[in-house]
């Protein structure tokens, strides 16, 4: 579904990603793991067009996405969440989710200013869908609140609702359980599994190994910008390179 070929990114000569290649199969959960600074977020940013890769190719459903601006990438069916939450604090919770339906809401200033009946009806339909999405992530009772006063866990779920409301074909989740407690993490894990069973394809950046090993179909390990291993969770766990990246080289001691 998504194929990365030799993706590289340099920041002023400093390589953040070097020749990363892997592919996502439709309907799978792929987890992207690696120590801090391994380039996981850079990789997500290169896929979604927030950053332009220095070299390599991003191919999504046969379309070349390399170097396209972020809104074009979104248009092709990729949604994402952010590591450091980026909700819109002054907008209501409902409006935050409606922002996830921007592509379907139309972008003509003229028709927006005229607000003729077709647009009214479309707005009403979108509102219903946004409410449904909020309901899934059990936020419906807070729809009218300004998003800025939500608690941390609610904000995380709001970002997920916003990413999924537009029925994207691929969702990139950047650390969906960072900062959550065990119960909340388990709930998000169940939600992710449910989304998979509904046919969503997910790419997950995560530090929580228990979660990754229990739900992922494929694990990709990055270290210092290089892809050092990929395979099923069991394969990756046995890979000596991975152990080295996480634990350091095992030196024979006297």
């Amino acid at each position: 579904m998504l194929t990365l070929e030799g993706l590289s990114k340099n920041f002023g000569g400093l390589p953040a990603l070097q020749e990363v290649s892997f592919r996502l199969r439709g309907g799978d959960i792929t987890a992207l793991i690696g120590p801090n600074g391994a380039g996981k977020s850079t990789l997500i940013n290169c896929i979604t067009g927030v950053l332009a890769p220095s070299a390599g190719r991003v191919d999504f459903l046969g379309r070349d996405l390399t170097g396209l601006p972020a809104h074009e990438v979104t248009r092709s069916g990729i949604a994402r969440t952010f590591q450091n939450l980026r909700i819109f604090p002054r907008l209501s919770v409902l409006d935050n989710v409606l922002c996830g339906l921007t592509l379907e809401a139309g972008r003509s200033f003229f028709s927006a200013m005229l607000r003729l009946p077709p647009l009214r009806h479309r707005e009403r339909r979108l509102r219903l869908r946004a409410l449904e999405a909020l309901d899934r992530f059990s936020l419906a009772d807070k729809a009218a609140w300004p998003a800025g006063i939500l608690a941390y866990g609610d904000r995380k779920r709001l970002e997920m609702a916003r990413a999924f409301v537009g029925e994207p074909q691929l969702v990139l989740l950047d650390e969906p359980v960072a900062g959550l407690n065990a119960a909340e993490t388990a709930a998000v894990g169940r939600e992710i599994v449910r989304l998979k069973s509904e046919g969503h394809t997910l790419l997950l950046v995560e530090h929580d190994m228990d979660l990754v090993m229990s739900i992922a179909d494929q694990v990709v390990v990055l270290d210092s910008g290089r892809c050092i291993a990929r395979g099923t969770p069991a394969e990756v766990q046995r890979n000596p390179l991975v152990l080295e990246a996480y634990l350091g080289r095992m030196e024979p001691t006297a």
Partner: protein
Amino acid sequence: MTAKDKILYFLYLHRTGLTVTAFAAFVLVFPLVEDNPYTLGLTNLIALYALVVLGLNLFIGYAGQISLGHAAFFGLGAYGSAIATTAFNLPPWPAMALVAALVALVALVVGLPALRLHGHYLAMATLGCNIVVYTVLVQWHPVTGGHSGFSGIPPLALGDFVFDEEGRFHYLVWSFTLLALLASLNLVRSGVGRGLAALAADETAAACLGVDVRSAKVKVFVLSAVFASLAGSLFAHCYGFVSPDSFGIFRSVDFVIMVVLGGLGSIWGSLFGAALVTLLPEWIEVFDTYKDLIHGLILVLILMFLPQGLITGLADLLKQRLALYRRRLESRDADA
């Protein structure tokens, strides 16, 4: 659903349209109650400024950008209409549309490079643009009449009905302002408006949700320039006289103060801001003498204590308190 519920639901569903209708009715009967030309002159001026401020509020308040140069578009509209109808003898209505189209083009040319800038740099760029326009108006003597400006601009007319006195002009200028008000209210309640609010909060997040950030910024800039140009044309035809002093950078700053007083992103607040800044010197004489000083003070105080602007800031505060209060109530219920 009982009949009462149905009525309440209807009122809720059509609250925006109904409020606009009520306000339009108020504007319609206002000259019948208040026929003092001086007062009507003031309310007309409010309507003219409100037209500019509505556009500017979309740009500053909703899209989160900054412009210290909208008096330039206001001035280009006024001078454009003045020159087209006197020097070229064009009929006023087509001239107005033509000038608005030209100003839109100017805004596009200025906006494409300038809107790559953020914050202070964008403020400087727009300020510079206003100074250029002001200097041209002053220096291009043969065309603009220099410092003293020029008069003899014909009034607008619909058939035999000539808008040549304040009472008649009231209807003309308020029609424009009400249409702009309705258009702005519609815009912010649509996907386009949510996209603007999103890019104001976080451009990266907005882009990842599918908002074409650059194009949306340029579009809303052009739209606000067109509103300003229309207001300028009306200004020229209303007073029959234009001079560069009405379109300097201090007028631009006044527009920004109106936006901030009304509240960033509050469409109804735009009317309030325009009215307050226009009326303050009328109510309190000190304001007239120390106008710039007091305007500056108002701006500083509001931005320090309510950075979202007066009305929006208070409304946000209220909304937040209410939601927090309800949350506390709920958690207390849950505990009990």
